[in-house]
């Protein structure tokens, strides 16, 4: 018996891992996993590294968007090149400072309009999987962030907090196939559910065929899902397709917020109405 276990120890440990994964899946799907010490430890380990990597990533993004490229500078003489690089760096720093100032001012203005108890957070990581749309924030339960809270920006809603550790929170974006937001069409007051699809598109479901919707119609949160405050911008209708048969029409949505371009967000509870967000 002992010899059998020793001979097949890798096989048996792999099978144990598979069974443990299935148990975790079942428990997670039923919402029975209340406390996850391993997950907290992983996040505690990854968080500081991730903040650094995200800063590098943001820097590369900014540099790639800079109007001055190295190719243009090659034709300049050494003195001018040094001067230009210095001035460009200074300009980028000032522009970045100005942009950050504007963003934070907008966030501050927006914060005064949403329910009290909101928390400002920075996005420190994107999803590590092709299959799920999520991001990681730098605030957690130590900052009064709780599972189920809404994540919004001045441009519109971003997603929902699905898990928290003391120092971070995982957000399921509205572009994820597992998400669902109860919305109203601002012009007609038609109701529906906005959800992501695995191919990266966002759709509005369960809208009656008889409802007259147009491209460009603004979608706002209804507040009925108990997560997002009423009146926040979700996106606009991109395309309306009325099928030959069926109860509902097929609607593509252009989300108001592209999480990949966001740096700061606001985490709010969904218990009070809020004014419409900036379009």
């Amino acid at each position, binding site marked *: 018996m002992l010899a059998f276990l020793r001979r097949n120890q890798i096989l048996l440990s792999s099978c144990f*891992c598979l069974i443990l*994964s299935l148990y975790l899946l079942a428990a997670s799907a039923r919402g029975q996993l209340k406390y996850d010490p391993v997950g907290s430890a*992983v996040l505690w380990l*990854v968080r500081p*590294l991730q903040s650094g990597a995200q800063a*590098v990533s943001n820097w590369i*993004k900014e540099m790639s968007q800079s109007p001055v490229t190295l190719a243009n500078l090659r034709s300049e003489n050494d003195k001018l090149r040094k001067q230009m690089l210095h001035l460009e760096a200074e300009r980028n720093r000032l522009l970045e400072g100005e942009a950050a100032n504007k963003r934070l001012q907008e966030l501050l203005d927006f914060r005064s309009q949403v329910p009290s108890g909101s928390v400002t957070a920075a996005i420190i990581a994107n999803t590590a*999987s092709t299959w799920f749309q*999520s991001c990681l924030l730098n605030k957690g339960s130590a900052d009064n962030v709780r599972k189920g809270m809404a994540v919004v920006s001045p441009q519109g809603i971003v997603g929902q907090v699905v898990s928290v550790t003391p120092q971070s929170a995982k957000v399921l974006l509205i572009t994820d196939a597992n998400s669902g937001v109860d919305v109203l069409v601002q012009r007609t007051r038609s109701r529906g559910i906005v959800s992501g*699809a695995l191919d990266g598109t966002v759709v509005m479901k369960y809208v009656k065929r008889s409802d007259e919707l147009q491209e460009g119609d603004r979608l706002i949160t209804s507040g009925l899902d108990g997560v997002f405050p009423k009146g926040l911008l979700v996106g606009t209708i991109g395309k309306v397709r009325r099928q030959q048969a069926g109860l509902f029409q097929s609607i593509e949505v252009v989300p108001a917020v592209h999480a990949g371009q966001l740096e700061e967000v606001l985490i709010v509870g969904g218990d009070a109405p809020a004014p419409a967000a900036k379009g």
Partner: protein
Amino acid sequence: MKLTLLFSAIGIISIVLQMSLLHLLPLGPVVPDLILVLCVYLGLHHPSVGAALGSFVLGYSIDVVSSPLLGINAFAMSLVFLAVYLSARSIWVHSPLVSVVIVLAASLVKSAALVLISALFVSMDGVWETAIKYVLLEALLAAALAPIVFMLLQRSRNLVQQLSNAHE
């Protein structure tokens, strides 16, 4: 012990890269799967109980940072490790070309596991359409990364072993 620390560090770095810098590549929603390549390497060149548990932990780490359902990537990575370990017992896999094929196949196994588990547990709309659209691209990317990642892992492993020998 030193190898365990090495692979743990590489695992953490891979997760961090997958969550940040690899998003800069113009590949749409597809993220190159370094963790999968690492799991395949462990199954091929470092099969042990620790490596099996390591594959599980790597998958679980992706779940913690990215997935709404805990255990889905842990299952997929454990399955990949098991499949690679079993195939490595019967096929000669120590050449870069074969490792590319193994990683390609492992990526397809991972995607199949993710699609099936998603269909069973969360019933996501459009899961099959997306699988057709992205599975092959994801697998090709992982396979393309395999030779260089394997080479780096092998060199790191040799370096650690040399340092250990020198220390002794």
